[in-house]
């Protein structure tokens, strides 16, 4: 670059020089003619211009140089900067490294310090531990010394024990021999046991066979009982069959009787009808009888008249006799004629009478009918009158309504409709009235058409009434039954009954009751198993204990015997002591005290005059002693009164009694 600059500088110098030289030549000739001042001025100008150009060139050069230098400097700057920056970065890196290292070191220092402290602590602890260990060591040393001493003693004991062991071994050997002998015995016993077991098994088999036989026996017995029952049933059946046969034998007779009874029934029914007919005949005959009696009376009257007429005839005959005989014959003839005529007339009269009577009866019946009809008619009339009254009232009311309507309403639209309605209502009314009248007429004709059958109708009515009453009673009974059944049904429904045809009861298979029952059953089973297990254990213990702990048992037995002996001895001792005490009491107090029953004490004095003289004391519930009445106590009434009632002291009383008896004895 410098070389280029140099070359450029040189080139520029060269050019400048050339430029300077050139203008001088052309200038000189051109400006030679000009004034010299002007030429100088121009030369000066040119030189100045050249100088300026040279300066410019120089400055340019310098500028270029400076530029170059600047660039160089800049380059060097940049290089320096780069290097510096590199150095800086290197330094920074180094710094960072150093810082990290520093931190590491610091951390290490801290850790080391911590370790130091820990180590110090450990040291202290170790020191303490070592002290403690030393103490332990000392203790242990002491113990070791003790143990050494003990060991020595133990060694001595060991030696002694070894001697004992030798002795025991000898004993063991002796015992071994005995054991072998016993094992031989044991084997023999076991063989016997086996034999016994076999026997036991046989016996058990026999037992089982026995039991099977017994069960079969019981089954046979049951079968026998069943067969006997069946026999009994069969015998009963046979008896029943016999009775049934007898009854069946009676059947044809019964059938005959039935037929006879049916015939009798039919006959009786016919006879009943006949009876009714006969009754009617009887009535008719009664009426006839009445009529006949009346005719009889009339006959009697007629006979009386006949007698009168006969008397008259006789009178007439007498007259005839008195007057002449002719007349008699004629008159007798005429009289006979007359009589015949009379008789004829009498007969005709009788016939007419009978006819009249018949007519009378008919008329009477007709009058009855007519009366009935009249009564019916009267009843009808009354009813019709009542109805008429009601209808007239209705009519008046309707008319009033109509009039009111007519008065209220002026237009003629309503009235024709109302009048139409009125007419319709009246027509309906009339129709109903006619219908009612017809019905009543029918009823009356029905009732009147059978005057002769009134009795039958009455009987029919009475029988129908009875039927009605029976049916009513049955209905009431059935209603009561129905109510009772309904109540029962309701009750059953409340209780939860159901009709299996229409209803089904369902529940879940896994329901709480079944679950609870299962649990309960499981508990029970578990408990039972436990119980059986425990029982087996107990049995095994008992059986096992008997063999293994025979020694303990013998010990226990010995203990028991010893304790029993002790008890016996204690009893004897107590007995003796009690006896002693009682004798001493007897001797010192003078009374023998016996306990007769619970809370009753019998005192017998040593100076008693008789063997039976004794005082009876009873211990009350409060603990106080009371004297009971005895024969002896009755003789001591004064002393009882003085000592017991007055002084209230039993010892005083007893001592008084003793003194009294003693005095009596000594005097005696």
């Amino acid at each position, binding site marked *: 670059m410098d070389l280029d600059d140099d070359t450029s500088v040189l080139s520029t110098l060269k050019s400048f020089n050339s430029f300077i030289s050139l203008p001088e030549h052309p200038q000189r000739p051109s400006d030679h003619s000009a004034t010299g001042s002007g030429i100088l001025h121009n030369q000066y100008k040119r030189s100045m211009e050249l100088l300026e150009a040279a300066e410019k060139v120089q400055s340019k050069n310098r500028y270029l140089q400076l530029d170059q230098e600047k660039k160089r400097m800049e380059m060097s700057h940049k290089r320096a900067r780069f290097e510096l920056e590199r150095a800086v970065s290197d330094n920074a890196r180094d710094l960072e490294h150093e810082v990290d290292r520093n931190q590491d070191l610091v951390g290490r220092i801290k850790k080391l310090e911590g370790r130091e402290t820990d180590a110090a602590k450990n040291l202290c602890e170790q020191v303490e531990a070592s002290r403690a260990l030393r103490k332990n060591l000392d203790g242990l040393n002491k113990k070791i010394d003790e143990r050494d001493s003990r060991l020595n003693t133990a060694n001595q004991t060991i030696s002694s024990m070894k001697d004992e062991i030798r002795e025991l071994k000898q004993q063991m050997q002796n015992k071994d021999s005995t054991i072998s002998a016993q094992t031989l015995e044991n084997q023999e016993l076991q063989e016997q046991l086996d034999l016994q077991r076999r026997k036991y098994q046989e016996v058990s088999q026999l037992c089982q066979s026995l039991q099977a036989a017994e069960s079969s026996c019981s089954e046979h017995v049951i079968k026998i009982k069943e067969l006997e029952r069946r026999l009994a049933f069969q015998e009963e059946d046979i008896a029943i069959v016999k009775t049934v046969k007898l009854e069946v034998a009676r059947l044809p007779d019964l059938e005959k009787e039935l037929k006879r009874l049916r015939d009798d029934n039919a006959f009786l029914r016919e006879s009943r009808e006949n009876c009714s007919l006969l009754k009617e005949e009887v009535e008719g005959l009664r009426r006839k009888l009445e009529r006949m009696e009346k005719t009889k009376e009339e006959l009697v009257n007629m006979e009386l008249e006949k007698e009168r007429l006969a008397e008259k005839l006789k009178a007439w005959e007498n007259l005839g006799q008195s007057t002449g005989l002719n007349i008699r014959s004629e008159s007798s003839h005429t009289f006979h004629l007359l009589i015949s005529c009379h008789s004829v007339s009498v007969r005709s009269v009788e016939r007419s009478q009978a006819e009249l009577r018949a007519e009378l009866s008919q008329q009477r019946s007709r009058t009855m009918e007519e009366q009935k009809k009249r009564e019916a008619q009267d009843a009808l009339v009354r009813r019709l009158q009542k109805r008429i009254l009601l209808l007239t009232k209705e009519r008046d009311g309707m008319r009033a309504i109509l009039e009111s309507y007519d008065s209220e309403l002026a237009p003629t639209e309503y009235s024709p409709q109302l009048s139409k309605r009125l007419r319709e209502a009246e027509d309906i009314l009339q129709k109903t009235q006619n219908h009612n009248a017809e019905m009543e007429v029918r009823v009356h004709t029905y009732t009147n058409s059978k005057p002769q059958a009134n009795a039958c109708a009455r009987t029919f009515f009475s029988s129908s009434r009875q039927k009605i009453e029976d049916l009513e009673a049955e209905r009431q009974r059935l209603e009561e039954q129905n109510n009772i059944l309904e109540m029962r049904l309701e009750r059953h429904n409340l209780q*939860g009954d159901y009709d*299996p045809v229409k*209803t*089904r009861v*369902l*529940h*879940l*298979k896994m329901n709480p009751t079944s679950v*609870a029952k299962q649990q309960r059953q499981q508990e029970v089973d578990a408990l039972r198993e436990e119980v059986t297990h425990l029982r087996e254990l107990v049995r095994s213990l008992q059986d096992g204990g008997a063999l293994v702990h025979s020694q303990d048992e013998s010990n226990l037995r010995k203990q028991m015997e010893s304790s029993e002996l002790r008890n016996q001895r204690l009893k004897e001792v107590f007995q003796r002591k009690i006896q002693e005490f009682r004798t001493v009491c007897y001797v010192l107090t003078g009374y023998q005290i016996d306990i007769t029953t619970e809370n009753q004490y019998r005192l017998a004095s040593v100076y008693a005059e008789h063997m039976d003289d004794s005082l009876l004391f009873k211990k009350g519930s409060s603990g106080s002693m009371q004297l009971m009445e005895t024969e002896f106590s009755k003789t001591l009434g004064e002393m009882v009164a003085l000592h017991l009632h007055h002084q209230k002291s039993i010892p005083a009383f007893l001592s008084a009694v003793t003194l009294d008896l003693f005095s009596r004895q000594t005097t005696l």
Partner: protein
Amino acid sequence: MTSTLKGITLKGSAELVAEFFSFGINSILYQRGIYPPETFTRITHYDMSLQLTTDPKLKNYLTNVVSQLKEWLFECTVQKLVLVITCLETSEVLERWQFDIECDKSAKESSAPREKSIKTIQDEIRSVIRQITATITFLPLLETPCAFDLLVYTDKDLLVPDKWEESGPNIINQSEEVRLRSFTTSIHKVNSMVAYKRTDSV
């Protein structure tokens, strides 16, 4: 469900009745002490406080039964629901709570809802449950440990579902019966009654 609608449909009625049974059975179990009272929790329903069990096995059992019962109520094939209380030691029935169900079968054909307000039905149910609680005063004490079972009386020709089996009616020997209140949803009518074993000392 039906509380937003105006009337009662067959499905809604079946749900109401099944819900009543669920709460009723729970309160009977609590009142009679079949399960310990600490296994029950208090909840509010029908505007009153009721006890509901928290025992998971019992809950499971009750949901099984009540869901099956809902189906049967919808089909109108159930006639009675009976809660039977049995003594565990002697296996005899001590108490029987019986609920007769009368179903209006015409509701099956027509699907039009019936006019009856939910509030009146709930009032009726509330009075029934209150009465059940009040009956405890005259029922004899259950001194022995007891278990309960739910029986359902259905039509004979019904198909028996899985896990269900036929059982006896478990009628009490020598019983006293008391009829309690009833309620109706206008499709289902439920009559309640209780039968208990007569105690000789009374």
